[in-house]
Every structure is written in structure tokens, then in C-alpha cells.
């Protein structure tokens, strides 16, 4: 028994050593600490955001500490991250909130402690809970997608399928509603053949599209929450032999998505700019640390329609431009 217990203590000690190995390149006291809290570590959108923030912080001589939730909806993980960052002495925190109302208490706590809080990508509810929001206007991005789809359909009577992300999500709702607005129809319009939940994942996008096609084979326009969902939808359309007849559009501007546009799988996608959000955020924190000046309000980081089949009256860029400015790989 004794030897085992000694062994136990010793091995736990080993694990402790592993931690001490991790201590390389830690922050020196003078650095301005910028905290970044994203939704998850896995989404390439947030990976790009983090890389851009790290690059920008390096350039500005600041120290970036990045944290993330473990899954979409990990409010507790994000709250803990913010608490830790306040403790660490962060000057400002850039946050992509998992849930627009879930973070209100901790954001208030951070701001009361003199920390600048900027929402990236996703606004809080109410929006003035944070100092400023740097984000894509998701409603506007939805409008761009919907308007293009309607125009490109021409004379055909529209029959629309909606491939949503996670119902109730803030971004989800904006994009969904924006699409309908741009398309010129209202929620509940008979032109909507049905909706499916994809969680923004390719496999679920494919299943959702298959089911909707089984329900109504005449679908000719498909809204997708993001490009992975669109890729799934394309696979389903192809297996039904419908890929040429359906106006498949999306939002995001990931490089894989732009390539799909180039290959003609997706008709058009609306690109957003995570690196711009991150870089602007880091700049704002560094400036706040130096001068005490805070940004405020909603700052649209912009969105562009990317397509190789432009239609009259709708501004767009081609995929060559898209591939130069896309994120992820």
C-alpha cells in the first residue's frame, strides 16, 4: 500500500512538472494584456480571429491571452475565462459571446473593474452592455444573401429551403431574418418549403437538405447559415440530381466556402472579416491602455458578396478577390 501511495504522490508530481514546462514566454509585468474569449477553439472562424489578434498584439507590443468555451453554449466556460482574465490584469477583453444575454453579469463586473469590453462578431443583448461591438452586420449580410438569391432566380416561382444553425442563436436569427427580408418574403410565407437545424455542420446540413428535398422536390432556393452547412446541402442536392437547378447561397467567407463558389457548388456567399474584428479590437485595447479612450457603439466590420455570376443591381466581388481575403484554409 505504502509504495503505491508514494508512487501516487510521485506521479502527481510528474504532472506538476508538465505544467511547469508550459511556463515559457509568459507575460512580463509591463505588457498590456489583451484577453480574447471566443466561442470555441475548433471553428476556423475563431481560429483566424485568434491568429489575427495574436499577430496584431505582437505588432503593438501587447500580450494576448486567448481563451474559449468548450462547445457552442458553454456560458460557464466563458464566464470563468473572463473572471480569470480580470484576475490576470487584462486591460481589455475581446469577447464573442456564446449567448447574447448570458454574459451580462460578468461583463458588468469586468467593466466595473475598469476593463474595456468589446464584443466581436456577436452583439450582446442589450447591445450597450459592452463598450463597443465590432462585428459583421449579420442582418445586412443576410439581406445581401437573400437579395442575390431572389434576383438570380429570375422569373422562377421561388420555393425556399432554410438551413438554420442553432435555433435561438443571435447570429442565426439575424441572418435568417435578413435573408427573408432580402428575398422579399415574410416568415410563414408559403414560398418557404421548410427549415432544418444544421448546427452549422456539414453532416447535419446534408441530412437536413435530404429531408427537405424528400418533402418538396421543387425547392429552387436554399438559405444556409454558413458554408459547411452549404457544402452538406450541395452533397444532398447532387445526390438528388438537382445541383444545377437550385440557387444555393451562404454566409461566412471561409476559404473552403469561397472555393466552393469558384467551383460553382455555391452560387454566392457573403464574406465577413474576423481578422478585421480582432485587429481592430486589439488596437482599441492598446489605445485604451495608453490614452484611456474607449470606442463605443456598433462598428460594422463589413461584408461582401462573393460570386462569379454577378447580377445587375447587386454589388459583388469575384472569387479571385475572395480567395485573397478569405479566412481559414
Amino acid at each position, binding site marked *: 500500500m505504502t509504495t503505491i501511495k508514494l508512487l501516487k*504522490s510521485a506521479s502527481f508530481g*510528474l504532472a506538476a512538472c508538465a505544467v511547469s514546462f*508550459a511556463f515559457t514566454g509568459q507575460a512580463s509585468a509591463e505588457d498590456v494584456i489583451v484577453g480574447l474569449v471566443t466561442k470555441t477553439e475548433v471553428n476556423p472562424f475563431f481560429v483566424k480571429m485568434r491568429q489575427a489578434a495574436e499577430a496584431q498584439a505582437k505588432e503593438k507590443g501587447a500580450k494576448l491571452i486567448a481563451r474559449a468555451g468548450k462547445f457552442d*453554449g458553454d456560458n460557464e466556460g466563458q464566464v470563468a475565462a473572463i473572471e480569470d482574465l480580470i484576475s490576470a490584469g487584462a486591460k481589455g477583453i475581446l469577447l464573442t459571446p456564446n449567448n447574447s444575454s448570458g454574459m451580462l453579469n460578468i461583463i458588468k463586473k469586468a467593466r466595473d473593474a475598469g476593463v474595456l469590453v468589446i464584443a466581436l462578431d456577436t452583439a450582446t443583448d442589450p447591445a450597450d452592455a459592452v463598450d463597443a461591438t465590432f462585428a459583421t452586420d449579420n442582418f445586412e449580410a443576410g439581406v445581401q444573401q437573400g437579395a442575390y438569391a431572389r434576383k438570380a432566380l429570375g422569373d422562377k416561382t421561388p420555393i425556399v429551403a432554410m438551413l438554420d444553425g442553432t*435555433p435561438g442563436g443571435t447570429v442565426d436569427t439575424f441572418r435568417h431574418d435578413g435573408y427573408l427580408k432580402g428575398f422579399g418574403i415574410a416568415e410563414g410565407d408559403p414560398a418557404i418549403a421548410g427549415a432544418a437545424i444544421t448546427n452549422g455542420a456539414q453532416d447535419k446540413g446534408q441530412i437536413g437538405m435530404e429531408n427537405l428535398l424528400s418533402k418538396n422536390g421543387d425547392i429552387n432556393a436554399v438559405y444556409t447559415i454558413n458554408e459547411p452547412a452549404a457544402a452538406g446541402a450541395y452533397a444532398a442536392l447532387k445526390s438528388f440530381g438537382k445541383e444545377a437547378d437550385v440557387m444555393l447561397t451562404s454566409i461566412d467567407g471561409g476559404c473552403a466556402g469561397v472555393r466552393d463558389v469558384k467551383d460553382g457548388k455555391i452560387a454566392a456567399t457573403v464574406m465577413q472579416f474576423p481578422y478585421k474584428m480582432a485587429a481592430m479590437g486589439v488596437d482599441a485595447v492598446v489605445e485604451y491602455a495608453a490614452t484611456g479612450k474607449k470606442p463605443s457603439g456598433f462598428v460594422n466590420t463589413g461584408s461582401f458578396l462573393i460570386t462569379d455570376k454577378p447580377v445587375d443591381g447587386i454589388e459583388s466581388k469575384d472569387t479571385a478577390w475572395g480567395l485573397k481575403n478569405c479566412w481559414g484554409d
Partner: protein
Amino acid sequence: MSAVPVSPPEKTSGVMAKIIGVPSAGPLLVLLAFGLIFAITNPRFLATHNLSIILQQTVIIGTLAIGQTLVILTAGIDLAVGAICVLGTIIAGKLVTSGYDPALSMAFSVLVCTAAGFAAGGLISGLRLPPFIVTLGILGILTAALRLISAGGAFPVRDEFLGWTGNTLRLGGFIVTYGVLLMFVLYALVWYLLNETKWGRHVYAIGNSPEAARLVGIPVRRHLLSVYLLAGFIYGIGAWLALGRIPNADPNALQTANLDSITAVVIGGTSLFGGRGGLIGTLIGALIVGVLRNGLTLAGIDPLWQDLVTGILVIVAVALDQLSRRKG
């Protein structure tokens, strides 16, 4: 500390032997070692404010891990902890937003969580189904039910009473929330049950050898049912604590609570095979995870290291358990 006082062999003597003899000594040493490393690398770590934050961050998983410990001590496993807890937050939130009395709403939602534990225990002890499968099934059912109840979305819960566990009070320069105190009270109560009463003895006996327990006349199935029932009740209290942490009812929340609570239990030295371990270890296990996450952030290190180190600790703990069981 544990209900299994194992006297050290006569050969070892003195303080060292005493420390080694306590089952939760290993995890405690790890916790102290990490604490020391972090304190040296960043003085902010030991700030009372920071320590208080670590405690607050441990509240939800730490509380859910109490129920998980009880279940694992009977050689079971509970994959539905997080889902039952979220169920509690959503029911309480829905009732209060519909205008019901907050205290009654919370009490009702604790009751529903207890009933969920009762259902799990009933299936496990009554139909003799494996706990893994039963709780996996309940997890699936609740995940769907939660989305349906909440119509897919999260909603804010702005109520004084439901958020009460997040309020702070000052204890000699140390700021704690009522939630932290409540968690400690739960630990103390369940520790007493496990170590000082017949009920606890029988939990260990059943986890050790259900056949032996049956032969000495312990009503094994009824006892198992009571364990899952109590676990469900604790998850219900966990829901109240979760609302104090984040005043938001979100069907997508706490998806990894099952694995996180199992991690705390295992790092704390409780055997997945049942009948060995204890609650103090679990509390230390939960704190180790919290300290790692917080300390690494303070040191400006990628917190992915936390997952890595936690993974190592889990494997070491399980391997040591296996080793000591084989020897015994």
C-alpha cells in the same frame, strides 16, 4: 477522511506515514504543488480576490460532482448530470417568467430534478439496466426535451431569488458567494452521510460487493434508488447555483458537465469500480481543475495545457487505482 480508514503498516512511522495513509493525500499534494507553482509565477494568483474566483468557478461542477461521487461509489456512472441540472434552470426560469413565486418555482424544479434522479435509479435498480445506458438515454431524452421546452433558445432569468446564490458576502477579507457556502454545506452534509451513517456505509458496501451487501441483508436495490434520488436532488440545487453564476437558462449549457464531474471524481481518487474513495478527494479534484485553468491564464499560457494536464492526471489516477486494487 475516507470512510475506509486504512491504518498504515507498522514499518512507516511519523508524520509522513500519516499523510500517506490518508487516501486524498495524493490529490491534495497535487493541488498544493500547482498552487505553489502558480503563486511563484504570478503573485496575483494568491490574491484573495483570485482565490475567491476559483472557488466560484468550482461551484457548479463541484456540486454536480457530489452526486457523481455517490453514483460512482456504487460502481455506477451518471452521464445525465449536466442535462438534469440544465432542466432545473429552465423549469425554474420558465416558471418565474410566467409569474410564479420564485421560491416555489425553485423548489418545484429541485423536485423535478429529484424525480429525474428517481427515474434513473428506478430503471437501474428496478430493471437492472446498466447505469451507463440508462443515464445516456436520459441525457438524450432531456437534451431534446430541453430544446422543446425552451423553444430552442436561451432566455435570461432576472430574478432576485433565483440569482441569490451569486450574491457575495465578506468573510474576513475574503469575498465569497452564497453559492460557494451552499456548496460547502452540501459537501459537509453528504460527507457526514457517507462517513458517519449506516446509509453511507451501505453505499460503500454495495459498491464494493453488491452480493456481499445482499447477503448481510442490505436492501441493495432500494438503497441504489435512494442514491440516485439524492444525486438528483443535488443536481437540482446545482441548478440554483448555476442560475446564481449565470442568470440565464440555456438548453445548450453544461454539455460537458458529465465528463467534467467524472474527471473531478477520478482525479480525487475515487475508484470507477465503486466502493473506494470519498468526497474530500472530489472537492480537491474539482479544485485542481479550477486552479489549473485559472493559474495558466494568469501566467499567460494557452489553457489547452489545462486539458492536457487534466488528461494526464485522470490516467495516472485510474492507473494507480487499478494497481492498488490488483494488489489488494
